[in-house]
């Protein structure tokens, strides 16, 4: 999130799109309701299902799964056509006035941007981005047109790009009636007025598509146009679905980043530290400090063994070899027998991964599997008869390490609003269950010993690591870990105050620069602070710590006009006091307060080299503007771009995996979407062992609309079979079963004159635990977004029929 939960109270209009906030983030509704009650805020829910959020909304916008880009493109079109954007904001704080290279264009028939070419390595297309660059003068300065008249300025290119996203066209694509669309666009566009703020909150219903990153881009674009970024009550607010998933991302749980969102070094491009620094450090913007953070990170990893003479141990840092290391690719490698073993930590891909049935099959090709979880999960028991496997044929050795639940251990958790809060232990874990920290500490010490004794490929990676976290009585000293993450001076061990103290010369160590400052005082660490704010705008600066630098709303320079006057004086975040000649603040400023306001107004988005919000971004793999593409499994052609049904850059991993022919479209006529219910949690392994929760949501079910149920002769509670192309093998169609939930909350949608039905499945069930059921993800395709490789869980095609 750019903002935080408590800040929701300042919003004038909420748009919950691709995120069922009442269901999956119930606490958000406390603040949404506060805003509605106290300032008459409106809530718009955009979702294929009339969900629990829609139930308490002012306006419900139905749409076909996988058409969010069209919806948001339509919103951008509406804002631009009716001149509802926040003009002063757009002129000063975004790249709307920048000129783009002459050769840039978008082909409306082929549905591609200039620079498209084959990418044989991925068996897909890719872009050469030469024409996507800013025009520059001889001195390297970007050429701009402050009056936004030049046809090649971003504003005009954007108008041109979205010209086909009329309400009528968007209605044909999404299936949402024209008047509902218009009403939602009108409502949200009111936040383009300077004093008003609009909040777009989303989750996996935006990201889990082959065009997921572009959906997020579209949200960013709309929020920049309306001047909602950096503003209290505004923002692009990704609501995180798991406890501490924000923390896990910050700590680089993903393969393409190392802690603090620095790119993972690649062997080919960055063989030396010098190469990495040269190629990955922009000249301007905050990331120009990257070398300080990387070298401090290396010092935290390798301690005394990292010196200026050995590139601070950079050569030991694992590097990407150019192969795709994402989830789907990893399982594909496993299918070829290339994965010897796996440590599956708090993860249950046999339920939560796409095409989960195939994953269980591939798992048998591994020699060993370690599962760390609270209960025996489906992934750890892929070899059992419950999974439909024959144990006699499987040689994989499986180890289960029982883990402590979150309330049974202490430590930091980062919430969606980037607040890093200490959580004290409530009780001891049962039996032999151990905290994750204890397990990783023991595991590392064993590994280090083995490498010391037996050697191996690049043993220094492990043997030279600085790892000293042992505490008393066989426990781990978590404070030692906190100190490492916060950062310290290596010469005297004193904790650094924040990342401004981090040095290039190796005199500081810091495990994650973004977290620096969260534990800078041993007696009163900021992460443990619990003093609520008495007066103010709800920033609560003395409650825990928010990265970066305890800043609650990022880019907050954009909350005031260039002269430093807040756009909304009722909720002042930062303001320039003319009389005293200095800034006054209700938050930690996200800009240099020592330069005049007009100067800081030129670079409100300090993380970017150009310092201004990107309506046009050359840094996205599948295009500088979001364009509507159908999901990989689509029931209709692309109405806007006839030659490009789905995202041409998207990641395909398997042949004959998604619905392509007309015959297949007839065989799988219904649009399938998957989702969560509040009673269960993720792959369900925790909640399906909890009788009180099972009582409320006892069985796997499938939601279908009344008309479809009528047509297929399905009544409430009937057993229903669901089929998809992923379960079609060697001419035989397999299926999964669920109980029918025939509901008014789903309705058929008219897509370009054809009636399309939507079928919904919660994905929480599996074959282990006290409540068992079929795995919904057996149906979903293994296709991914070209930027993140996130799988397309939210839109695919299926068939359903009554059983018996």
């Amino acid at each position, binding site marked *: 999130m750019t903002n935080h939960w408590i800040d929701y109270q300042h919003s004038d209009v909420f748009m919950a799109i691709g995120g069922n906030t*009442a*269901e999956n983030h*119930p*606490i958000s*509704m*406390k603040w949404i*309701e506060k805003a509605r*009650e106290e300032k*008459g805020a409106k809530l718009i829910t955009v979702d294929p299902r*009339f969900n*629990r*959020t*829609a*139930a*308490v909304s*002012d306006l*419900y916008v139905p749409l076909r799964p996988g058409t969010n880009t069209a919806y948001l493109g339509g919103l951008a079109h509406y804002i631009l056509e009716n001149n509802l954007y926040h003009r002063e904001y757009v002129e000063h704080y975004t790249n709307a006035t920048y000129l783009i290279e002459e050769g840039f264009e978008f082909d409306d028939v082929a549905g591609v941007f200039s620079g498209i070419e084959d990418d044989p390595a991925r068996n897909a297309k890719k872009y050469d981005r030469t024409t996507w660059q800013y025009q520059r003068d001889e001195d390297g300065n970007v050429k701009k047109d402050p009056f936004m008249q030049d046809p090649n300025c971003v504003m005009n290119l954007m108008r041109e790009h979205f010209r086909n996203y009329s309400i009528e066209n968007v209605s044909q694509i999404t299936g949402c009636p024209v008047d509902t669309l218009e009403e939602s666009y009108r409502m949200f566009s009111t936040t383009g007025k300077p004093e008003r703020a609009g909040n777009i909150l989303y989750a996996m219903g935006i990201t889990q598509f082959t065009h997921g990153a572009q959906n997020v881009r579209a949200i960013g674009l709309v929020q920049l146009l309306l001047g909602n970024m950096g503003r209290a009550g505004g923002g692009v607010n990704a609501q995180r679905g798991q406890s501490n998933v924000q923390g896990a991302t910050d700590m680089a749980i993903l393969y393409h980043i190392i802690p603090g969102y620095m790119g993972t070094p690649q062997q080919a491009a960055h063989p030396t530290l010098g190469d990495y620094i040269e190629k990955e450090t922009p000249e301007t913007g905050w990331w120009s400090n990257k070398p300080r953070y990387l070298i401090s990170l290396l010092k935290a990893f390798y301690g005394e063994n990292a010196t200026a003479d050995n590139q601070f141990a950079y050569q030991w840092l694992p590097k990407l070899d150019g192969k795709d290391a994402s989830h789907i690719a990893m399982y594909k490698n496993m299918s070829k027998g290339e994965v010897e073993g796996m440590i599956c930590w708090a993860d249950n891909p046999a339920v939560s991964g796409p095409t989960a049935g195939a994953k269980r099959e591939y798992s048998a090709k591994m020699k060993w599997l370690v599962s760390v979880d609270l209960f025996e999960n489906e992934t750890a028991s892929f070899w059992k008869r419950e999974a439909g496997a024959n144990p006699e044929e499987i040689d994989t050795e499986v180890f289960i390490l029982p883990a402590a639940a979150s309330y049974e251990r202490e430590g930091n958790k980062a919430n969606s609003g980037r607040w890093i809060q200490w959580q004290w232990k409530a009780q001891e874990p049962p039996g032999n269950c151990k905290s994750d920290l204890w397990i990783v500490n023991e595991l590392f010490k064993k590994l280090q010993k083995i490498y010391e004794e037996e050697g191996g490929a690049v043993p220094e990676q492990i043997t030279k690591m600085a790892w000293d976290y042992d505490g008393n009585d066989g426990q781990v000293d978590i404070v030692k870990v906190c100190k490492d993450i916060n950062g310290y001076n290596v010469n005297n061990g004193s904790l650094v105050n924040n990342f401004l103290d981090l040095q290039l010369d190796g005199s500081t160590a810091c495990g994650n620069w973004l977290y620096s400052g969260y534990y800078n005082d041993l007696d009163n660490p900021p992460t443990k602070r619990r003093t609520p704010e008495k007066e103010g705008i709800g920033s609560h600066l003395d409650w825990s710590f928010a990265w970066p630098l305890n800043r609650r709303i990022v880019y907050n320079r954009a909350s005031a006009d260039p002269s430093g006057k807040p756009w909304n004086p009722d909720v002042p975040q930062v303001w320039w006091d003319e009389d005293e000649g200095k800034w006054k603040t209700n938050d930690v400023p996200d800009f240099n307060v020592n330069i005049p306001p007009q100067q800081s107004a030129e670079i409100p988005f300090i993380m970017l080299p150009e310092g201004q919000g990107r309506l046009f971004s050359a840094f996205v793999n599948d295009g500088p503007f979001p364009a509507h593409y159908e999901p990989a499994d689509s029931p209709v052609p692309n109405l806007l771009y006839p030659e490009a049904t789905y995202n041409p850059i998207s990641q395909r991993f398997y042949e004959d995996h998604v619905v392509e022919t007309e015959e297949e479209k007839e065989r799988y006529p219904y649009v399938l979407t998957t989702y969560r*219910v*509040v*009673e269960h949690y993720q792959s369900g392994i925790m909640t399906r062992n909890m*009788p*009180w*929760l*099972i*009582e*409320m*949501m*006892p*069985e*796997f*079910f499938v939601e279908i609309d009344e008309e479809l149920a009528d047509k297929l002769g399905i009544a*409430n*509670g009937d057993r229903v079979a669901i089929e998809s192309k992923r379960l079609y093998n060697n001419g035989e169609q397999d299926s999964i079963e669920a*109980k*029918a*939930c*025939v*509901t*008014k*909350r789903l309705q058929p949608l008219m897509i370009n004159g054809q009636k399309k039905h939507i079928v919904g499945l919660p994905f929480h069930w599996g074959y282990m635990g006290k409540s068992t059921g079929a795995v919904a993800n057996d149906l979903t395709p293994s296709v991914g977004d070209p930027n993140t490789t996130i799988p397309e869980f939210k839109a695919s095609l299926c068939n359903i029929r009554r059983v018996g």
Partner: protein
Amino acid sequence: MKTQICLIDASKCIGCRGCQSACKQWNQLPAVETEFTGTYENPPRYSCSTWTKVVFREYRENGRLQWLMSKQGCMHCTDAACKLACPTGAIYHTDEGTVTIDEIRCIGCNYCAAACPFNVIGFDRFTNRAKKCTFCYDRLVNGMEPSCSAVCPTDSLVFGNEREIIAKAQNRVDHLRKNGNPEARIYGLDEVDGTAMLYVLADKPEKYGLPADPRVPFGTRVWNAIYGPLRFLVVIAVGFGLWANITKNRELDRGKEETQKGSE
């Protein structure tokens, strides 16, 4: 007399059912074995181990969709039908204004359950006792709010001073009426002389599955009028029964002990 009541603002309920599980957790009520029947609502009925639950109702009228959710359970009525129906006086109003079943005096006749206009009293077959929401009486007398309202994330459930809660409810109804809910209303202020669970509804009570006009059944009133004055006799009779039962049991136990000794 009741001074503190609970507001159930159904217009803010998101059906997360935190209240439903918190009730089971605090009162240590076992889970009921259920099945999916086509609605999110479960368990299907109130019982000795389900005292409160969220009721889900869905409608589509003139193209307008509604999915109404509300926490329901014992209303703790002022004019409490269960109390009037109880032959042993086991059901009474506490000093806090809540309605409680005295388990010792309950004889399991189930008249209360039959009389309750809200149909929320369960029956425990093993102990032969009627069971229902206690308004977390054990928490109340220790200065804590009921477990359901304590966990509500959206402030749909709010516990507080009666006068403040009623004012809050009235404000909320005004707000709802101004914002497209002409049928919004308070429920439980005049009904059965007022309840300690006061609702704000965005629509008619029937649409939430609540009775439009809850009343003490006529039969219960007649029965109470005739039988009420004689209740003390029943108490004596029940007391005698209990005494006889205990003595008998003791004799039986003694008998058992003797048999055991004999067999040794």
